[in-house]
């Protein structure tokens, strides 16, 4: 390839779910976008995403996040439809509602308390989940095991294929005449006239605006553009079974069936740095817990495992921030790349395109961590 799309309206650093959603969102508003990505071995959280579009438990403790998540879930159907119009690729989005399953009375009480708090967060708009007893859960999910005491059902929850979503976004970027460049690990970010130039392994790219969507890379790139983005890695592992006939009518928080028929079983929260290795003690724990939720899973063969590193801020909520010192530079971080894809493409991208985040986004700024010890 000798032609490099060096000049663009906006450069997006990072081609995972976050960068690609923002990139497609900008491109579909008529911007020329270049998405700069690493290579095939990139530490890509998107490829470890479980695929939930999940509302019921999000934002306890940060109401802005709850609202943002709801907006994204609300706009997902339109987002998915538009992406399909652009590319012919279906994200496999379904909204049958979602279930959080509880294995003890104590867990059920905690879930009930969360549910009540979320009702306060969400007000009377009907976004909250409802607590179900064992029988009610069993009516909706006949395969549950004897240890399941109840659960919470959120009718605004759903799921999609993170992998098809990512492919669709990349295809959408291309369909809109914008560019995705792999193997373009970033070396340098510099001011260039009124815009920025970014030096990568694939050459130098220039644009008026710059979006950092590089996951953990944002911590390193931030200081180059006047941003301090504190992040920590958290490993998650997932087991994937062979394809089976339809078994689950809706996703649960740790077990879901994909459109293809595989059962995905999550997950773990491990403080093991940037390692993405699959480890058998954790795989065993994940398997035994899944068998308590759905005993029939015991008879399925596990075909694959995943390990990926979540991108977490100190409080676990997203970071959206524009640089004060570097106009037109935005930083985007979250660990819910699927749930928030709709909002990123349809709501955040227009703000970035206009060069200004809405005032209420101050709540998502990393300034909330400054002055704290983290």
């Amino acid at each position, binding site marked *: 390839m000798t032609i490099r799309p060096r000049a663009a309206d906006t450069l997006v650093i990072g081609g995972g779910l976050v960068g690609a959603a923002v990139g497609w969102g900008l491109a579909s508003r008529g911007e020329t976008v270049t998405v700069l990505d690493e*290579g095939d071995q990139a530490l890509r959280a998107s*490829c470890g995403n479980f695929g939930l579009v999940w509302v019921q438990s999000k934002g306890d403790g940060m109401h802005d996040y709850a609202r943002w998540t709801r907006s994204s879930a609300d706009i997902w159907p339109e987002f998915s439809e538009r992406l399909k119009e652009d590319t012919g690729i279906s994200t496999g989005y379904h909204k049958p509602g979602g279930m959080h399953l509880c294995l003890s009375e104590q867990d059920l009480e905690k879930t009930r308390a969360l549910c009540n708090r979320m009702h306060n967060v969400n007000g009377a708009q009907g976004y909250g989940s409802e607590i179900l007893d064992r029988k009610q859960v069993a009516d909706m999910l006949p395969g549950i095991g004897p240890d399941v005491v109840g659960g919470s059902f959120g009718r605004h929850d759903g799921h999609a294929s993170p992998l098809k979503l990512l492919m669709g976004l*990349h295809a959408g970027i*291309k369909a809109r005449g914008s560019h995705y460049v792999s193997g373009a690990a970033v070396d340098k970010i510099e001011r260039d006239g009124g815009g920025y130039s970014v030096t990568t392994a694939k050459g130098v790219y220039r644009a008026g605006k710059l979006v950092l969507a590089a996951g953990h890379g944002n911590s390193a790139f931030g200081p180059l553009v006047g941003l301090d983005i504190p992040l920590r890695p958290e490993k998650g592992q997932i*087991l994937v079974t062979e394809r089976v006939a339809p078994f689950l009518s809706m996703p649960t928080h740790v077990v879901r069936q994909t459109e293809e028929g595989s059962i995905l079983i999550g997950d773990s929260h491990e403080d093991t740095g940037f390692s993405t290795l699959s480890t*058998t003690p954790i795989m065993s724990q994940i398997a035994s817990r899944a068998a308590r939720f759905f005993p029939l899973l015991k*008879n399925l*063969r596990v075909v694959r*495992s*995943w390990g990926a590193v979540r991108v977490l801020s100190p409080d676990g909520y997203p970071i959206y921030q524009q640089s004060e010192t570097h106009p037109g530079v935005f930083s985007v971080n979250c660990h819910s790349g699927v749930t928030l894809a709709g909002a990123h493409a349809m709501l955040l991208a227009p703000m970035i395109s206009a060069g200004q985040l809405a005032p209420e986004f101050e709540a998502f700024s990393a300034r909330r961590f400054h002055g704290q010890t983290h």
Partner: protein
Amino acid sequence: MTRQFDVAVIGAGPAGLAAATEAAQSGLSVALLDEQQAPGGQIYRGIETASAARLKLLGADYAEGRPLVEKFRASGAEYMPGSLVWNVTIDKVVEFSRDGASSRIRADAIIVATGALERPCPLPGWTLPGVTTAGALQILLKASGIVQEDAVLTGSGPLLWLLASQMVDAGVPPRAIVETVPNGRLLQALPHLPKALWQRSYLFKGLSMVRKVRRAGVLIYRNATGVAVEGATFATALNFTAGGKPHRIETRTIALHQGVVPNQQVTRLLRCDHVWDSSQHCFRPVIDAYGATSADGVYVAGDGAGIGGAKAAAIQGQIVAIGLALRAGRGNGERLAHLHSALAKEASVRPFLETLYAPAPQILSPADDTLVCRCEEITAGSIREAVRLGAPGPNQVKSFLRAGMGPCQGRVCGLAVSAIIGEERGETPDDVGYYRIRPPLKPLLLSEIANFATSDAQEHATE
């Protein structure tokens, strides 16, 4: 408690058997794990149970497996047959399934002797029942004494001729050999001939196999292109072009072969460095003269380190084991010089064979509508489309398309997928890379993984 060994050997083919025997004889404690129920690997499959008649039919090269197995049986190495190794960790814990339950052992050194796989042969109709690898027909013959009539063997490589001559000896010659070796390959290979003469016995053996197959009346087609299998619920015919004319041979048994390639699953799982071998058209792990990989304490012997054949594999197994013994202060290296020169002699015929029998262009660059990933039914065209979206390598392609996500975990399609990506991007296979491999190495019941949460596992988790 997790049992501890000096050496864990994975695979009971010639490399694994020789390595385990040598290591045990030098006083090291050795465990040899193998998925099969009997030793020999694929090359010496059924070697302990083969009748005199079958031994005679399969030839002297096959019979060489007998003493190898006998020495191993007497060596004192612990043999764990029927053990499916499904995970190996960088701290040298080997986790395996036997009789439906999993256990683990630890070792100071691991010798990966998992041998070779058939190179993927994506061509139209290659998933139809009745189409197998040439290796599959040979396994049927070795392990069960079964030969199919009217078989058509197609592709490239010495194994096609060996199999055909064994079938002739069994009284059931194949109907035809459809060779995909392009004209001019012999000319390209000629510069390697002088070196190959160091191993002229291989060349003579080859020529006599070809003569035997011809005399048996087997139809032989050279320089075939456009090879395609016809059929609906099973193969009914093989179509191809040869000598400027289209041909159609009716048959229900078609065997494909384009040479064999290292089985990379364990070395990829351990994230060892690999390199593209442009002569063998495959990846192989990077090793030193003693078989050491880039992963500490992990060694490879045999075809898994690069294709060299059964005799070379056994020599490599010995070399690796002697190296380990020396490091443990046992034995001496007296035989090393001899073994290294024997290995070099074995290798002398390879460049000639590799050039002559390099995979067919049709196979390396399948047509857009040809299935490449058999499990998930992904075509070459869709892989090229994913590359045009910017996918830099096989892991992104896997995410986009599910290629390599099925039960074979990419064993069959991996090399073909990397090659297609490389061609489409104009990059070398080294740049493109390979699938990331994770446990379980083969599908495993969830209950077995769940039951594996032993106290030892907890101890391991907190390390």
